């Protein structure tokens, strides 16, 4: 067995350095003459002492123990793991984007402001909304921002509305964001088709309804066919419609949340707009609103003067305030902007068409081997249930772990919560038919293995750098950092 990978702290040898700074060319000064001694560091931070080669080899080795989209197929449902174009990475690293400061004079950052302004316009057009804010740093952050906007809107009308309705298939962030925005969550069960149950919605909607949060297509990959009726029910009750844009890869140029009746939308640029997930961020979660909510948008908003110059508009007295320091994850916004430019309007529509075609193709080919809780066409993703494998003592988790041996990132598992032994598969548009066919063949092989040699699944993965890890021990006796320093 190969030894454990050392922590960088464990590689330390006193006296080694990896840094290089010029000699200080101003007079040395003694901090203890100036700063009260109790506020000066009494013991240096226990950072490792390594040299540059150690640093490079350490992180190169860590990278080899990681799996990204560039390593292979990553059909992680709800996460839209599409290819991250390299041009966008290069663009974001240009000094004119990476080395600029938000407090520079506006005239010294006109290129950046133009980019932000155009992106606001493009995203508003794409979603059918009237105005966008680019401040939120992630999807959940966008949800919370959107709910704060909804709160401000109702309050401005003198209405106290305390409840946010979510379907049981919704992302966990929806109720969590509702709580952070000071709302109570009302969860309504989906109907037998996996869609919003109109009767349940009617029963839940009332004078205390602030909003309904909905993903469309929903987390089962199904389009809410009765969206017009849903919107009418919520609006008639005086509530607003919130669109969780995690699944917008299915509908670019095909259907717009604004046309469906949604009042507030967030987009996950790290999903639909191809910006990389970074191993868990940074993302970007711009929020779009219909005109009646514009006054409440976080400030500042990038605006354009008649002379064609751009500026930060702070003159927004009804704004909910700031949701993040500065102006959002600009480096991510640069990438998303480049992505949109690379496709143009027809291209974005083609992206969604391909994403939906790929998902339906995989669904059809895998359907004979799994239970399909919601038959019929899907959008960009679909769910399967692995419950029939229980007969062999095998669970969906074991299928996922076995996939690792074949060099795939598994689909999302055990979500949404309303599907037993759920597998949620999202191929995205950037995967070829050969890639999907090979994955499907592997899934079929794994089913056969479950039937004939379930142990192979139960003990999987066999080929990874570590075997299944003891998560119970990690939570019961938390070791959350090394104390090697």
């Amino acid at each position: 067995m190969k030894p454990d990978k050392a922590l960088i702290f464990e590689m330390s040898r006193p006296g080694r350095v990896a840094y290089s700074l010029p000699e200080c060319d101003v007079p040395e000064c003694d901090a203890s003459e100036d700063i009260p001694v109790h506020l000066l560091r009494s013991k240096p931070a226990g950072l490792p002492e390594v040299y540059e080669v150690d640093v490079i080899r350490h992180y190169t080795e860590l990278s080899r123990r990681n799996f990204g989209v560039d390593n292979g197929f990553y059909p992680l449902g709800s996460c839209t793991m599409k290819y991250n174009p390299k041009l966008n990475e290069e663009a974001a690293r240009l000094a004119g984007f990476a080395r600029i400061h938000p407090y520079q004079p506006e005239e010294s950052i006109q290129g950046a402001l133009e980019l932000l302004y155009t992106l606001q316009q493009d995203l508003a057009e794409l979603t059918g909304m009237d105005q966008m804010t680019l401040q939120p740093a992630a999807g959940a952050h966008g949800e919370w921002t959107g709910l704060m906007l909804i709160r401000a809107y109702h309050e401005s009308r003198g209405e106290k509305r305390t409840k946010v309705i979510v379907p049981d298939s919704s992302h966990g962030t929806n109720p969590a964001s509702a709580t952070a925005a000071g709302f109570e969550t009302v969860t309504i069960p989906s109907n037998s088709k996996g869609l919003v149950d109109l009767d349940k919605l009617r029963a839940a909607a009332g004078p205390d309804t602030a909003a309904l949060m909905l993903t469309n297509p929903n987390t089962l990959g199904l389009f809410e066919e009765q969206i017009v009726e849903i919107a009418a029910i919520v609006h008639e009750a005086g509530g607003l419609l919130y669109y969780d844009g995690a699944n917008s890869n299915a509908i670019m140029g095909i259907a717009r949340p604004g046309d469906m009746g949604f009042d507030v939308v967030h987009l996950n640029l790290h999903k639909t707009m191809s910006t990389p997930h970074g191993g868990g961020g940074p993302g970007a979660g711009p929020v779009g609103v219909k005109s009646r909510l514009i006054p409440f948008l976080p400030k500042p908003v990038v605006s354009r003067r008649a002379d064609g110059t751009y500026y930060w508009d702070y003159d927004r007295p009804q704004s909910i305030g700031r949701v993040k320091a500065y102006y959002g994850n600009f480096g991510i916004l640069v990438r998303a902007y480049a992505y949109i430019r690379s496709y143009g309007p027809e291209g974005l529509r083609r992206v969604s068409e391909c994403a939906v075609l790929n998902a339906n193709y995989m669904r059809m080919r895998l359907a004979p081997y799994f239970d399909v809780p919601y038959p019929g066409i899907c959008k960009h993703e679909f769910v399967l249930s692995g419950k029939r494998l229980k007969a062999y003592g095998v669970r969906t988790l074991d299928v996922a772990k076995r996939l690792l041996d074949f060099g795939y990132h598994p689909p999302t598992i055990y979500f949404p919560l309303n599907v037993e032994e759920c597998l949620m598969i999202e191929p995205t548009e950037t995967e070829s038919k050969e890639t999907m066919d090979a994955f499907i063949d592997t899934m079929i092989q794994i089913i056969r293995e479950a039937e004939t040699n379930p142990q192979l699944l139960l003990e999987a993965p066999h080929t990874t750098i570590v075997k299944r890890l003891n998560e119970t021990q990690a939570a019961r006796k938390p070791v959350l950092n090394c104390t090697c320093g």
Partner: protein
Amino acid sequence: MNKHRYLPMTDEDQAEMLAAIGASEIEDLFADIPPKVRYQGTLRMSGAMSEPELLQHMKELAGRNRDAERYTSFLGAGLYDHHIPVVIPHILSRSEFYTAYTPYQPEISQGELQAIFEFQSYMCELTGMKVANASMYDGATALAEAAALASAATGRSRVLLSSTVHPEARAVVKTAARGLGLEIVEIGYCGGVTDLNELENMASDEIAAVLVQSPNFFGCIEDIQACGRIVHARGGLLVTSCNPLSLGLLEAPGNLGADVAVGDAQPLGIPASLGGPTCGFFAVSEALMRRMPGRIVGQTVDKEGKRGYVLTLQAREQHIRREKATSNICSNQALLALCASVYLSVMGKAGLQEVAKQNYCKARYAAGRAATEPGLSLAFEAPFFNEFVIKLPEGTSPDDLSAKLLQAGYIGGLELGREYPELAGHMLVAVTERRSKAEIDGFISEMGAG
């Protein structure tokens, strides 16, 4: 558009796949969308660009911004122009890191998980706190989450917020407070630091916490220990926001009584990038561990006893707890946490002290120059780290001064009048290790000349 460099679908693929589905055209796959909401037009935006055209376009936009490579920057105010070690972009460009999602499958994500574990360790070493999470969106949102945590932990809803905290962080705290039902009370400043008398007067048995920043927005070093004594006597928590690079010189907040230490890791190798993405950090005492927001990585073993890492303490999180979660955060700033870790690995024990010392000495030198430059004076006497406030000559127009400095090749400091009306005509100036003596001399002379 049927051909695109990122799209593999050929006409033949499409025909075969449609046949397998039993559909005759792609349109059939959208039959479930009611006609009323089908979008029939063409989105109004500019058309597709080829790779060379797009690269040129991006360079043209970038070229219209004046960047800190071509200009000499004395602008800080939360985002600093430090040297970024050359290895950092190389490591961050490893696509095994940047094209991965959150490490849900630990067996094929040990690299990211170990990197986060090391980041948590680094943040604990720097701050002197017991536990840290995997990162927050930025320092401002981390501070807002700290206020939420303090309220939940104490069962109190009043939060004291020093007016020397970064104005944008204060704004974010206030936005969040409206959602959470927190009452925010601002504490004034005196001589560039939090007014401890006012803090003493405002502290009561109803306060959940006091939020202070050191070095504060003016660059001045706060006596966070004294703040801690006041708030702890009332049963509240001490929440500190700090510049992690300053911790090469300044005492760890964990050793000064902090219950929660947050901040922004931007100084640790992250480019300013118009303010984002940066990386918030969040560290707490052991007692508050299970109240932390966000992802946390823990060490464990695999079934053969080999050391490994997993996401842990997930019972706090939204995907399990939904409306009862400690926070709604999921995606955070993992890639920038990696950046901060690589920076700290490069700087090491000696380098972090050296870079902090250089920042301090160069800022002291610049302040000394400003104090003797005709027309300029220092606003505050309190000790500072790498940033300080200069009073400009009477009648100086901030816009004219900025323009003049740009003309001379400098990105000037931040004029404080908008956020602190009483400090109109004052400029917050940052001096990092990147500034040479000659640049400092030139800049101060340019400012003084009116």
